[in-house]
């Protein structure tokens, strides 16, 4: 009997269990969720979301530029706490590039992060069509802006993996498109830019502010010139001279001595949620973190070239991993100086490059604009194609020093074997492996 009574207690307890165990459900307490924007976005939301594009496009930019700068033997990257800059990147000893190390996974993932940020906004905009929050022209302008960035980010990744290719279609994370060849990737990037140009041409004012790096390019009419400039670079990579010239025609190309820096820029800030310019090291930099000039930059330079001031001599040489140098890359004066996305000096050189076969005299004229801007006299060498390519590549080397071009340029002209080797067992790699986690 007592047992029965007690069993009733147990039963009652179980009854309480079934009713008293509710737990509270929490939303993400620490950041806005993607689902929060899917039902529609306001102008304020769009401003914040686009703000994220400016942010993430700079994430790991320093690593990207170091990848290109070190592989292109423009400079050595010293980091006493990370041996892989002077090991793997220079192919020291038996080292090869790893497919799961920061130098590829970092920039690769960050570029696709920007692409995803932009693709999500494109999706939110599709839902916003017809809601009256934005005009059709505003939506079109925003799409053009976003597509320009998607194409630009994809191009940087393709620069790293080159013949390894990239994924072009990454809209649906559950159903990614395949890796496509370099040729197909360049074509896809160009089509994306052409679509962006169309979008921008149909756009009214951007319904969001741009950073100070886009001064002069902050309306669809002017921004489209930057989109054309990037498209010109892509066309050059495709060896399509006429395409280059067509895009340059609609870009902000200015063939005047002295105007080299007009363009669009990444800006930086000391705010802790912002990035500092990752390419800035002070002239007193130590082996803890320094970009030490590869010696041929000075020895190959022409006397009087003011571009040689892009390096500065340190009081004492730095030594790490059997590399010694006393000149440091000194492109930026502070840790919040802007870094160019694309600027007129490159456009002049692209104009020169595209004209080498079409109009060698115009090519020489363009090269002279660059030479004169660097306080050098006119080009006096031969004007056959090979000589002009030599001269064009040489001007690109000094004009675009440490801006991520040398390695790509030497590769597209098949001249990686001409790059200097600093230690007997070093190697010049032509491309980075596709990151391991892409499961290729």
């Amino acid at each position, binding site marked *: 009997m007592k047992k029965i009574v007690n069993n009733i207690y147990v039963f009652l307890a179980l009854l309480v269990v079934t009713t008293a165990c509710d737990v509270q459900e929490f939303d993400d307490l620490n950041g806005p969720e993607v689902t929060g924007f899917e039902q529609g976005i306001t102008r304020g939301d769009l401003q914040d979301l686009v*703000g994220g594009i400016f*942010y993430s496009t700079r994430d790991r930019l320093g690593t990207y530029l170091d990848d290109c700068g070190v592989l292109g033997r423009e400079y050595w990257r010293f980091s006493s706490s990370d041996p892989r800059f002077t090991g793997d990147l220079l192919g020291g*000893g038996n080292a090869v590039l790893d497919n799961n190390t920061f130098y590829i996974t970092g920039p690769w993932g960050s570029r696709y992060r920007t692409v995803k940020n932009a693709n999500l906004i494109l999706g939110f905009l599709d839902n916003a069509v017809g809601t009256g929050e934005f005009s059709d022209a505003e939506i079109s302008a925003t799409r053009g802006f976003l597509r320009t960035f998607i194409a630009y980010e994809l191009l940087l990744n393709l620069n790293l993996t080159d013949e390894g290719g990239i994924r072009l279609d990454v809209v649906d994370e559950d159903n990614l498109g395949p890796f496509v060849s370099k040729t197909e990737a360049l074509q896809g990037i160009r089509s994306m830019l052409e679509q962006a140009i169309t979008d921008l041409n149909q756009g009214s004012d951007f319904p969001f502010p741009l950073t100070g790096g886009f001064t002069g390019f902050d309306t669809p009419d002017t921004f489209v010139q930057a989109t054309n400039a990037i498209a010109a670079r892509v066309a050059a990579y495709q060896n399509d001279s006429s395409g280059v010239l067509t895009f340059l025609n609609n870009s902000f190309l200015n063939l005047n001595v002295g105007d080299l820096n007009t363009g669009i820029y990444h800006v930086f800030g000391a705010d802790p949620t912002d990035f500092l310019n990752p390419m800035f090291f002070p002239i007193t930099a*130590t082996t803890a973190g320094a970009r030490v000039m590869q010696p041929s930059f000075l020895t190959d330079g022409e006397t009087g070239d003011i571009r040689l001031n892009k390096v500065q001599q340190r009081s004492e040489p730095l030594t790490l991993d059997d590399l010694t140098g006393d000149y440091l890359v000194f492109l930026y004066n502070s840790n919040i100086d802007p870094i160019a996305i694309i600027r007129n000096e490159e456009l002049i050189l692209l104009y020169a490059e595209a004209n080498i076969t079409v109009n060698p005299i115009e090519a020489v004229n363009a090269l002279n604009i660059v030479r004169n801007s660097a306080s050098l006299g006119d080009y006096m060498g031969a004007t056959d194609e090979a000589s002009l390519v030599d001269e064009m590549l040489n001007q690109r080397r000094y004009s675009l020093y440490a801006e991520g071009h040398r390695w790509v340029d030497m590769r597209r002209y098949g001249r990686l074997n001409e790059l200097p080797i600093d230690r007997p067992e070093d190697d010049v790699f032509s491309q980075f492996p596709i990151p391991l986690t892409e499961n290729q």
Partner: protein
Amino acid sequence: MKQNYKSVKMALLFMLLPFFVFAQNEITGTVQDDNGVPIPFANVIEQGTRNGVTTDFDGKFIISVDNLPATLEFSSLGFTTVSQQITDTSPVLIVLSESLESLDEVIVTGLATSIKRSNSANAVASISAEQISGTTPAPTLDGALYGKFAGAIVNSNSGAPGGGLSVKLRGATSITGNTQPLYIIDGVYVSNASIPAGLNAVSGAAAGGSASNQDNPTNRIADLNPYDIENIEILKGASAAAIYGSRAAAGVVVITTKRGKAGETKYNFSQSIGATSILNSLGQRTYTEQRVEDSFGVAAVADFTAARDAGRLVDYEDEIYGENGFISNTNFSASGGTENTRMYAGISHNNEEGIVARTGYEKTSLRLNIDHKATDYFKISFSTNYINSISNRGFFNNDNTGTTIGVSLTGVTPYFDLFPDANGVYPDNPNGSSNPLQTRDRATNKETVNRFIAGTTINLDIYKAEKSNLELVARGGIDYFGQQSRAIFPKDLQFQRPENGGVNGASIQGNSQYKGYNLAAFLVHNYLPNDTWSFRTQAGLTNEFFRLSTELVVATGLIASETNVDQAANVGIDQTRNFQEDSGFFVQEEINYKDQFIGTLGLRGDKSSLNGDPDEFFYFPKASLAVNFNKFGFWNDDSIWNQFKFRIAYGEAGNLPPVGATFTSYDAFSTGGLLGLSLNGVLGNSDINFERQKELEFGTDVSFFDGKLSFSGTYYIKTIDDLILSAAIEPSTGFTTEVVNAGSLRNNGVELAVNATPFSNENFRWDTGINFFKNTSEVTELGVDPFNIGAFGATLGTFRIEEGSSATQIVGIGPNPGANGFQLHGDAEPDFQIAFNNSISYKNFDLSFLWQWKQGGDNVNLTALLTDLNGTSHDFDDVDLDPSGQLGNGPYRLSQLGSSAEVFVEDASYLRLREVGLYYNFTPTLLKGILGGRIDGLRLGFSGTNLINIFDYNSYDPEVSNFGGNSIFTGVEVTPFPSSKRFLFHLAVDF
């Protein structure tokens, strides 16, 4: 007035006493040990009833029984149990022999109940106060667990004062989830959080692609005072811990603090002072002109010779790590009360300096425990603990800016002059971004914690009869702490000055508020139909709520010498909130047949806000059986066999998904003042659930010769299904990880323990024990592609999760890659661990020591590589690594960089004299004359920790972890705070 009250009470007592005397048979007697020393607080229970009393200070007892003859059972912790039939009321003398195996201690089996160890079906480890702080007091609670029981890997993450330990029970319990056990103190769930101080803002450690926290914060279990602890029980896996459900997969550590004892108030005062020094210094490279020229260029040779000739060569390792830190521990406790109300009060103050100047750990702890028996059927007990702790941790571990003391020291050669001039101005380090002496003297990294832990338990006997009773146990607990972290990098530091690329001073201040509360209520029903069967049923509800909010302010560009975060040019604030609510129920039935067969069945059901579906119940069953062959009557009472038990237990437990795993979210950033939202890289998974551990353990406990020789062996098979994995997803999705349930992991392990008392007589006693532990793990199923995890990538050695391999294998690039493209270089899992414990007493001397041997288990050691790159390694020119005998170790390691990670993966075996203590106890006769005989005991002694260390590992200590202790991927070393050894002198007085 007080006096009067006391008199009234006494009078009442006298009035009541005769009433009992006449109504019942009163048995009196004394309980003693083998040596005739009275045993206080021994239990005296009338067999088959709940009638029981405890002995007083003189071992005396009075118990009233209804009928004579009656059988009384006498027991006390650490002694064998004796049953004796009493036929009349004449005084009895009971002698209990000491039991090494502590057969009669009780261990936790239910959330509200316990069971005699001899009847337990689980290998629950139990650690007494004596073992925790008797030999040598560890600075933190978890530090006292080393080698004390089989089945755990205790690992120190760094030598910084104030803790930072990890405890891992029975192998790899989770790949990405929590691997630290749940800590419960007097029924209160306590937080063992490690809250980073935000040093990453200066060190940039996570920038190299390694997102893990490398700040090396203290883990909060370090706050507890080891002196307050009476007993620790360790439920090592799901078979024992299933009753704790969804948070118990990594095991549960159940801690009981000291309670007051009725009688005269007893005081204990103890003081220890001592010193700490570096455990193993590496020494310097032997420099010659040629070597300096080879490594640092011709220009450096003149600097070297000038310094050498002037006798100015400096051993900077010794400058930084050569301090002898002072240690002082003071404890005072009082215990006493009446039969109805008892109290224990303790206060302690610990102050420990580190081996680096300006580091240290200071803790003050106050405890008050009160037990009140209001009526025969209602008891209430309170535990309260306030802790204030301050730790100065220094600035160590990995960085990407060359700023931590450890990393900058790798670039320092002895001919540098880094000392401040007469005006206190420090020269810049010519070969690094930080002058380590300046950073040590000027930078601050301080954590301050104020913590309050309080718990209440209420026992209500609802119903009581001869053969059954029903009890209600209700429990509530709260754990609250506020943690402040202050990391100050003044603007005059070399790396903070703008001309060196600095941000002109940084002040990083964190403020965390944690509140956890837990409520539980249980009904316990005992049913004893006859002498052969007994049944115990329990059912209960539990609810837990945890709330952690952290604000981290990073201010740079400090104004003048201000450190307040508003006195700065740039201020960034990051707030993180983690809320969690769990709720569940629990039922359990225990059946005991004559102590021969003891079976248990139980079920726990849990919900959690962290699950994809917070409304779904998840169930965790358990079942166990113990068979005591010695109770079958095969052996008579004089047999050498005391115990022969076979036991088998099965249980399931969970491990919750990480906070935020269900969300796809943005973080806020800025670009030149423009705000923006960028994805945080985690793809949310709304289907994420518990990972489920299923553990089957079986074993045997045997003891002979009155417990003087005992053996315990356990084998377990532990599988973890629905493994929570932070799966690396294709980065082209825009995300880097998704938290998924995908895979299974299996651990098999053996735990063996032998304890013996080879000698024991009046003057001499030797107790010895040895325990052995081996675990192997295997990933048996993986629902995602194999992936590398932890450490710094394959070039330098990384962990890799793939089907059919150990969960802690270390792979890397190498000349002989396997099918997966990587070469297997090692495994973090030790081959085995052995602890050898001895306690010898001769007359008034007590000597105890504990050796610990860890065999195998590999680390990824990058400290040597960083010094190689700077040409400063102590073994740079030794030739013992290169198989061809050509290259020095430094050049050889560098030559391997990029071609093989083998040289960075090192065997982390060690053999240590973990603890040693020698004490002298003054005999009471000696103390008689002092203070009128008021002193009951006086003990003087010396003790040490880590005094002898034998290892081949090429750094300060194989016990290290750059990434803290929260995952199984720990043994990675990057210029840590070196470990230390400790020496202490002790004085303890009981009065």
